[in-house]
């Protein structure tokens, strides 16, 4: 094997230029493959992040529903008749999660969970002179929210922690703040749905990139919201769970729904569409990358065919002196793999550099306040796939010429002189 490798190397050296060009073909293919996938995936991740960062893997909440035990159905139970009358409305249903403490303590014991954040949402009116702007007040635990939902990335001015540290403070969605003419440090007034009024100090702006959403949102600490609503410290409307494995979300959501006797929705159900775009972009990247590699494969095929044609004498003499057809085949496969591997390693390197270069190009958009340059991904999986695929292509590109070489009849060559 070592001997065959040294023969392969000698043949390669004799055809240095062509071998180099063939290797550059592979390098080019791999570079493009890596850069393209890195770039596409970076964009995908960013776009997914818009949803994923804000969407809990499993959201536990309480849906306002009509009581399923209507009096009329009690009365009709013994008969087979169907009733059309519904009279008891949902007036007394509550929006908070019952026994939230018990749920939280059971969640912290579940080791499939990365963490959770508590939330308390309530509609509210922001008062601008005599006009009221409808919106939402979100009581959040800043630390949890920063840790699991990248809250910090979306607070474009001010410090998120201030809503915890400064009493009666609020972070407003940027467009909402602009509408209210509220600068940081100003006081604004809100009215709850019960009609209570409250003064809050603006400590920051929030910008998620989705303007319609930002127009209506505001954030305070959980305690502040509870105080505004006049509720106790257990009063929560949402528990947002982040899982270690997002794929388990549907199972776990179903489980919680039963276990806690409340509602739970998983991210896959909440955002069914977001995966489609990702898939299409991935398919495009792989298709382009693989096409480039196949083209590179033809380059190798060509150089090997040429080499075999030129090295007929060498092949004949190797066979005459005791190298078998298989040995000859191996020599040419080694040549092809060497070209492939060298080209591939260079390609991986250049691909990495190219990806890095893309990541330094400025990319500013209002919708994405946290992003200053093009997003890229350095997922090692792409490098692995590129490596495997270039090995397969070069092996196949080498296989056919090598097979031809192994079948060369030395008698014909020696006689033909």
């Amino acid at each position, binding site marked *: 094997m070592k*001997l065959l490798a040294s*023969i392969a190397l*000698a*043949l390669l*050296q*004799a055809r240095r230029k062509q071998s180099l060009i063939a290797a550059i073909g592979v390098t080019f293919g791999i570079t493009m493959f890596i850069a393209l996938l890195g770039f596409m995936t970076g964009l995908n991740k960013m776009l997914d992040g818009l949803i994923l960062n804000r969407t809990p893997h499993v959201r536990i909440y309480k849906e306002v529903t009509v009581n399923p035990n209507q009096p009329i159905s009690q009365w009709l139970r013994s008969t087979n008749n169907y009733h059309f009358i519904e009279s008891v409305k949902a007036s007394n249903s509550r929006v908070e999660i019952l026994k939230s403490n018990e749920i939280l303590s059971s969640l912290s014991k579940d080791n499939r969970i990365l963490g959770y954040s508590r939330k308390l949402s309530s509609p509210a009116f922001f008062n601008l002179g005599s006009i009221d702007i409808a919106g939402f007040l979100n009581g959040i635990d800043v630390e949890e929210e920063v840790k699991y939902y990248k809250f910090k990335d979306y607070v474009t001015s001010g410090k998120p922690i201030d809503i915890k540290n400064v009493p009666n403070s609020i972070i407003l969605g940027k467009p909402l703040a602009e509408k209210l003419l509220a600068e940081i440090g100003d006081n604004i007034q809100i009215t709850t749905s019960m009609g209570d009024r409250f003064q809050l100090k603006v400590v920051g702006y929030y910008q998620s990139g989705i303007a319609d959403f930002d127009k209506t949102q505001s954030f305070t600490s959980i305690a502040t919201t509870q105080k505004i609503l006049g509720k106790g410290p257990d009063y929560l409307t949402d528990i947002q769970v982040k899982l270690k494995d997002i794929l388990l979300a549907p199972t776990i959501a179903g489980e919680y729904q039963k276990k806690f006797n409340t509602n739970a929705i998983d991210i896959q159900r909440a955002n069914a569409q977001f995966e489609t775009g990702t898939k299409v972009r991935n398919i495009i990247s792989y298709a382009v990358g693989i096409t480039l590699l196949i083209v590179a494969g033809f380059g190798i095929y060509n150089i090997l065919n040429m080499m075999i044609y030129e090295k007929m*004498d*060498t092949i*004949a*003499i*190797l*066979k*005459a*002196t*005791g*190298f*078998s*057809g*298989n*040995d000859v085949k191996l020599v040419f496969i080694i040549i092809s793999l060497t070209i492939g591997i060298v080209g591939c390693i260079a390609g991986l390197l250049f691909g990495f550099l190219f990806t890095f270069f893309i990541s330094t190009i400025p990319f500013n958009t209002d919708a994405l306040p946290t992003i200053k340059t093009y997003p890229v991904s350095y997922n090692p999986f792409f490098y692995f796939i590129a490596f495997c695929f270039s090995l397969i292509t070069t092996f196949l590109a080498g296989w056919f010429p090598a097979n031809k070489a192994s079948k060369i009849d*030395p*008698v014909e060559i*020696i*006689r033909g*002189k």
Partner: protein
Amino acid sequence: MSTNVLKAINITKHFYDPIDVKVLDNVNIDVNRGEFVSLVGKSGCGKSTLLYILSTMDRVYEGQLFIDNELMSSKNGADLAHVRNEKIGFVFQFHYLLNEFSVLKNVMLPALKLNRFSPEEIEHRAIQKLELLGINKLALRNAGQISGGEKQRVAIARALINDPLIIMGDEPTGNLDLRNSQIVFDTFKQLAEEFNQTLLIVTHDLGFAEKTHRIVEMEDGKIIRS
């Protein structure tokens, strides 16, 4: 001293392209250990064809071929390659060295393939063979940078490297001038005399043939003298 090295029984060979031609017709030949045999005959009588069959490179023929008392026709390609590697040394009319390698590496290659000795040992032996042929000073030259006569001697050294049972040559002096032919012939003679090397050499040169132990003569695909 009559151990059989090579035995061919009723070898018949046809070429079908363009028309059916019987190139070899029931050829029988025996070579014993230590014999220096020359194979002569008019151009086109089938000498090369016979030699390619005897050397196991051509596998399409009728009849039986024994090398070292083993039947060759029952072996597959890889086994035959091994037989060539171990038991047969070749010298062709055209030198057929590998220009990608040095002279020394050219001589070493068949031994590296055989893998009987360590690479250091093989190198040592290769230098010995080059010394025997008086060309050890060329060892590190590239195979493409030496003269035709020198190339042919390198080819002989290569044929010798595995101490083969028999050396076969197809007009090894056919492409050389008188002086170089003489050197090559003397080398063969020395191998036969001093090292008891078995040789089967195809030649046109009757002067050459007369100095060998035995002459086998062919005509129209048949042996007419042996």
